[in-house]
C-alpha cells in the first residue's frame, strides 16, 4: 500500500552564529516550533529521522535522533540517523516519507540541527593519509579548496556562454534582496553589484559575497497521514514527489574532493541532483514548467545560474538572461530561492535541506511573511551533498 503523505508542521531556528546554544538546544527549539505548527506534542510522534552531522552532538556517532529523544521523549519510538553530508536532510525526509507512505507509521518527524566550525570545512579525522583518499590528495598535492571547484565551473561558464562578472554578482544581489524579508536569514542587508564585485576575490571569478559561508541553524518538519492533516484544520500541503539519487558514471561535474573526472557524452552535469529532480517530477506527474517556487542549494552564484538549466527549466545559457531580466525574482516566471538561499543563510550543512522543506511549506500556505511568492501552489527543493548525494522534494497544495 502507498498512502499520501502531508507536511503537518514546519519549524526553524534562525540561521546565524549561536555560540551560547549547543546543537541539542537548537534541535529542541526547531522541534518545538514544528510541533506547535502541527498542533501536536511529542507523545504523538511515532518516529524521528535525523540528518546526522559529524561536527557536533550525536554522541560522536551521529546519533542525533537518539540524543534528542533521550533528552525530551523517552517513549521507545524508532530513531533513524541518516548520512548524506549536505544532502542529509533530503535523505532524512525521504526516509520519513517512506515510513508513512508504507503504512508503518502515521506521524514521523524529520530534523536537522547543526553548529558549524569556523572557516573552510576541515578534513574529518580517521581518514587514511594516502593515495586512496581524494580528500587527502586534493589538499596536499594542490590545496584545492571547495570554492576552487566551483570557481572552475564558473570560469568555464564564462567561456561557454559569455556570462559576465556583473551577472554573477547580480545573483548574489537577488539573494540578499529576497532575504531582506525573511526573519530567519542571517544576512539580510541589501547589497549591490558594485559591493559584491568589491568584496575580496576568493577564487577567480568568485568573490567572497558570491560564496556561501557556514552558519549554525536547525529545522524540523512533521509528516503525517491525510487523517492527521485534516485534524490540523490547515490548508493541506501534500508531498507530491520526493527522491534521492547518487552520481552517474561520466558526469562532467567537478566533484569535491576528487582530482579527476571521467567525462562521457550525454550524462547530465550534477547527475545526482538532476536525477533526483527528474524522479521527483515523474512521481508528482509534473514538469519543471509547473513549478512556482524552487529552493535550491546555492553554494555559489554559479549554482543559481546553472542548476535551473540543468533541471530543464530553460535552455543552457539562458540563465543569464532570466536573471538579468528579473524572471527569477519573487513573483517572476520561476521564483528561485525566495528565502534568500544559502548565500543569505550560510550553510548549516545537514539542516539545510530540511529548511528548504520548511520554506516551501510556508510558501504554499501563503505564510512566507515578507518574501511570499504570489499564488504558489507547487514548490520544489534541490540539494547536493558530498559523496554525490542528490535529493529533491516536490510539495503541492
Amino acid at each position, binding site marked *: 500500500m502507498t498512502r499520501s503523505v502531508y507536511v503537518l508542521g514546519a519549524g526553524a531556528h534562525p540561521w546565524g552564529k549561536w555560540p551560547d546554544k549547543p546543537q541539542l538546544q537548537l534541535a529542541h527549539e526547531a522541534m518545538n516550533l514544528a510541533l506547535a505548527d502541527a498542533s501536536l506534542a511529542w507523545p504523538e510522534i511515532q518516529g524521528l529521522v535525523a540528518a546526522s552531522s559529524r561536527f557536533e552532538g550525536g554522541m560522536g556517532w551521529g546519533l542525533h535522533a537518539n540524543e534528542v529523544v533521550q533528552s525530551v521523549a523517552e517513549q521507545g519510538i524508532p530513531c533513524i540517523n541518516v548520512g548524506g553530508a549536505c544532502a542529509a536532510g533530503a535523505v532524512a525526509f525521504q526516509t520519513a516519507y517512506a515510513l508513512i507512505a508504507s503504512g508503518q507509521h502515521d506521524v514521523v518527524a524529520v530534523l536537522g540541527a547543526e553548529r558549524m566550525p569556523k572557516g573552510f570545512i576541515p578534513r574529518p579525522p580517521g581518514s587514511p593519509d594516502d593515495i586512496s583518499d581524494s580528500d587527502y590528495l586534493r589538499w596536499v598535492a594542490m590545496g584545492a579548496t571547495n570554492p576552487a571547484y566551483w570557481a572552475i565551473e564558473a570560469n568555464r561558464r564564462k567561456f561557454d556562454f559569455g556570462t559576465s562578472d556583473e551577472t554573477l554578482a547580480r545573483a548574489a544581489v537577488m539573494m540578499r534582496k529576497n532575504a531582506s524579508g525573511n526573519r530567519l536569514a542571517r544576512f539580510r542587508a541589501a547589497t549591490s553589484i558594485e559591493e559584491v564585485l568589491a568584496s575580496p576575490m576568493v577564487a577567480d571569478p568568485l568573490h567572497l559575497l558570491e560564496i556561501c559561508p557556514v552558519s549554525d541553524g536547525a529545522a524540523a518538519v512533521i509528516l503525517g497521514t491525510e487523517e492527521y492533516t485534516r485534524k490540523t484544520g490547515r490548508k493541506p500541503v501534500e508531498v507530491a514527489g520526493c527522491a534521492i539519487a547518487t552520481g552517474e*558514471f561520466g558526469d562532467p561535474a567537478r566533484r569535491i574532493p576528487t582530482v579527476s573526472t*571521467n567525462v562521457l557524452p550525454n550524462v547530465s552535469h550534477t547527475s545526482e541532483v538532476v536525477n533526483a529532480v527528474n524522479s521527483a517530477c515523474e512521481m508528482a506527474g509534473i514538469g519543471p514548467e509547473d513549478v512556482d517556487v524552487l529552493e535550491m542549494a546555492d553554494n555559489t552564484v554559479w549554482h543559481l545560474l546553472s542548476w535551473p538549466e540543468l533541471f530543464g527549466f530553460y535552455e543552457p545559457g539562458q540563465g543569464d538572461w532570466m536573471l538579468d531580466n528579473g524572471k527569477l525574482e519573487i513573483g517572476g516566471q520561476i521564483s528561485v530561492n525566495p528565502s534568500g538561499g544559502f548565500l543569505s543563510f550560510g550553510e548549516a550543512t545537514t539542516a539545510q535541506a530540511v529548511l528548504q522543506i520548511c520554506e516551501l511549506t510556508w510558501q504554499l500556505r501563503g505564510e512566507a511573511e515578507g518574501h511570499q511568492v504570489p499564488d504558489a501552489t507547487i514548490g520544489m527543493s534541490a540539494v547536493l551533498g558530498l559523496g554525490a548525494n542528490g535529493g529533491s522534494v516536490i510539495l503541492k497544495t
Partner: protein
Amino acid sequence: MMAQQHASTPIVEGLFEIVAGTPKLIGSQCHACNTIYFPQALSCRNPKCRDKSVEQTFLPHGGTLYSYTVQRYQPPPLFRMDHWSPYALGLVDLGDGLQVMGMLTGIKLDEIAIGMTLKLVVEPLYSDAEIGEKLTYKFAPAERAGAA
C-alpha cells in the same frame, strides 16, 4: 663533510613517477572498457562493466586547459607550500574524457587561457629539514622546457 642529502620524493606515494627524465602520472586502466582513472583505483566504476579489474598505467602527459581558477586565499594547514602566494589551479583535458586537476606553473596568472596546450611537469612544493624535498605534479605551457 657534506650535509646529509635527502632525496626528493612525491608528495603522495603512487601519484607519479619520473621515467627517463619525463614525469608521468600513474593511473589505472579497466581491462574491459579501457577507461583510465586517476589516481590509481581499486576497481573500474563503469556500470556497464561486469569485470571490474584494472591494471596500472601511465596517463598521457599533455592536454588542453578546460578551465581554471586562481586561489587567492591560503588553503588550510594540510596544504604546505614554500613561499606561498596566489596560484592557479587548472582542469586539464588529457583526452578520452579524462580531466585532471592540478596546479599551473610557468605562466603569469593573467595570461592563462582556456584551450591552451599544457604538459605535465614535476616541481618542489616545499622542503623540510627532516623529510627532504616534496614534489608535486603541475601543468605548464607546452612550449616551456620541462622543469622535471
